[in-house]
């Protein structure tokens, strides 16, 4: 007993001392300024919500829940014969359909690219490829849009025709008329390309943190590379991948110009993704903004608020998931 106690004393290592600085006046002012500045970004977020609510409040009080559930968007003629009716349901559904389609297409490719960059690519070109990925993430959406319209759309229309002729019996792939361009499917494919860089880089970062000892153990047990990836890396990266996908979903929900250029705006809830009619909230705001009167402008503000809150929730959840999967 005595010996144990002595041993404990000898093991006792002094803790790293926490720095205690007595603050002078300059330091206090410095901290005050920096703290205020840092909270400014929070204030901006609050102000965005506040101002859009303030400007759009009249719409919410005029239409109530009907603004969310109604699909009709009509500025009316300004008198009693044709009153204005505003509802974002069609655009909201359109946003979700396009964004979910984009993620569904992008996710398998993101996983493959992340695995390639982290475990297959030769080390010599790995860094180069990763900076290429950062670079394409910065290609402006208007360039994605012009390319999507001129180059991508003819290809996608071809795929749409094949999908329609083989799976036309399935309600989602049915079309009322054989016009396939400027459809939600085209927008979805284009957005898949646009969210691929961010989803891939999140997935890659998570995969790179997979426990080395477990990978080595898998190899030691005779696993092939795929065996090690399947049993160690993929399960480890699952939650991070979900976070990355949601981050991509947030981007896809808010995309404006690219969608504007490749999608035919129609105010109707349309689930036939191959048909040439659809829309999303962001591109609808850009479309209507130019010709909107004062009352419709308020409706656009209200629509902006709905979009803002939707993307904020998706992004906050995604950030939480990604951060938590990094701590593990």
């Amino acid at each position, binding site marked *: 007993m005595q010996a144990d106690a002595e041993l404990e004393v000898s093991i006792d290592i002094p803790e790293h001392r926490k720095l205690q600085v007595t603050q002078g006046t300059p330091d206090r002012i410095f901290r005050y300024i920096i703290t205020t500045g840092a909270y*400014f970004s929070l204030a901006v977020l609050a102000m965005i919500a506040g101002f859009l609510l303030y400007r759009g409040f009249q719409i919410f009080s005029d239409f109530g829940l009907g603004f969310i559930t109604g699909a009709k968007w009509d500025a009316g003629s300004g008198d009693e014969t044709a009153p204005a009716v505003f509802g974002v349901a069609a655009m909201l559904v359109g946003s979700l359909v396009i964004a979910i389609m984009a993620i569904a297409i992008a996710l398998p490719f993101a996983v493959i690219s992340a695995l390639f960059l982290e475990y297959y690519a030769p080390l010599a070109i790995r860094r180069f490829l990763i900076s290429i990925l950062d670079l394409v993430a910065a290609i402006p959406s208007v360039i*994605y849009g012009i390319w999507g319209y001129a180059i991508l759309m003819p290809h996608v229309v071809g795929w749409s025709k094949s999908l329609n002729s083989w799976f036309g019996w399935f309600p989602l792939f049915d079309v009322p008329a054989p016009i396939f361009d400027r459809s939600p499917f085209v927008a979805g494919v284009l957005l898949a390309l646009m969210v691929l860089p961010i989803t891939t880089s999140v997935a890659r970062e998570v995969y790179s943190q997979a426990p080395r000892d477990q990978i080595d153990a898998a190899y030691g047990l005779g696993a092939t590379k*795929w065996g090690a990836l399947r049993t160690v890396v993929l399960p480890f990266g699952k939650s991070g991948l979900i976070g990355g996908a949601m981050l991509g979903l947030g981007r896809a929900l808010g995309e404006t110009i690219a969608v504007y250029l490749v999608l035919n705006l129609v105010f109707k809830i349309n689930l036939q993704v191959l048909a040439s009619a659809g829309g999303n909230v962001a591109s609808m705001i850009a479309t209507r903004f130019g010709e909107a009167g004062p009352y419709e402008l308020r409706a656009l503000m209200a629509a902006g608020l709905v979009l803002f809150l939707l993307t904020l929730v998706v992004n906050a959840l995604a950030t939480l998931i990604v951060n938590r999967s990094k701590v593990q």
Partner: protein
Amino acid sequence: MNFTLASEFESVPHAEPRQPWKNTKLTILRSVFSFTVAAVLAALIAQVTPLAGRLGWFVAMAFTFPAVMAVVAYKRGSRAMADQMVTGIVLIGFTSVMIPWVSIVATVISRGLKAFYVGFLTTDMLVNQPDDPLNMGGVSHAIVGTLIQVLLASVVAVPLGIIAAIYIVEIRGRGAGVVRFFTQAMSGVPSIVAGLFVYATVVVTITHKFNAVAGALALAILMLPTVARTAEEVLKVVSDDLRASSQALGASQVATTFRVVLPTIRSGLITAAVLGVARVAGETAPLLLTSQYFVKFNTNIFDGPMASLPTYIFSSLGVGTDNSVARAWAASAVLLTLIFILFTIARLFGGRNRKSH
């Protein structure tokens, strides 16, 4: 006791960790062989089936390459076959991801060059219609407009972003987690919402006109998260020893931050700013709602719309004639070049690469 144990362990020479997933010569040779066989097979299939052109060959390749890889591994058992098939899928998958991006860059450059002439960078569109012949008019006003608005945005967003990063890393205040979380969440604000917000506040309430400052503010909102994030990563690289030494010499926190920490990472902060600029230089949607587009360079940043490259592209596309669309491609090439140059500058200052050691 722990000390001696630890130091003894340090002195024992231990092997560098190996990378069992690294390719050996044999596996590379096998892949090259499989690739050749699959390429020939795919060409044959593309001849027989309706798949046409280079893309058709590639689609056929997506099936033949993993299949051939698996067949080559047949002798080594089913698990090796699965492994080789996945290798084939991963290689083909990554290549197919690169195709669209190569296509974007190639298309923008080749179509852009068609409408490009020397004067394109030095004239504006004041006396020309978008549909005029392609040796008249240009984007000088849009280039200057973009530069001005992006510069104004940086003046607002770069200090604020760095301040947020200093708060998170240097001060480590109680709200550090909250600030970090919300700056990250802010990066997801849709660009059109930033535009609407500035329109609702600045344009409607204060100036009653579209103007460049409003456009710059909208861009600043989108720029801030990128700057804050990069600056935070760079600040974290600074060793705590440096801060401790400075404080041990009796320096205050202000002096430590401004005379020790920030000068150490000057190049990293430049990277943060440049990445922020690259992020917003191509934004279209917020500018449509705030600074709009005008055919001539506007010298007053508080009054009247101002052109920018993205809105120039957008409005030329809107006109929709052959010549105006050609102009849009040329302007796209200019914009893409600008962004690639910015990216190269950011890489040269190399704030990110420091993370690796």
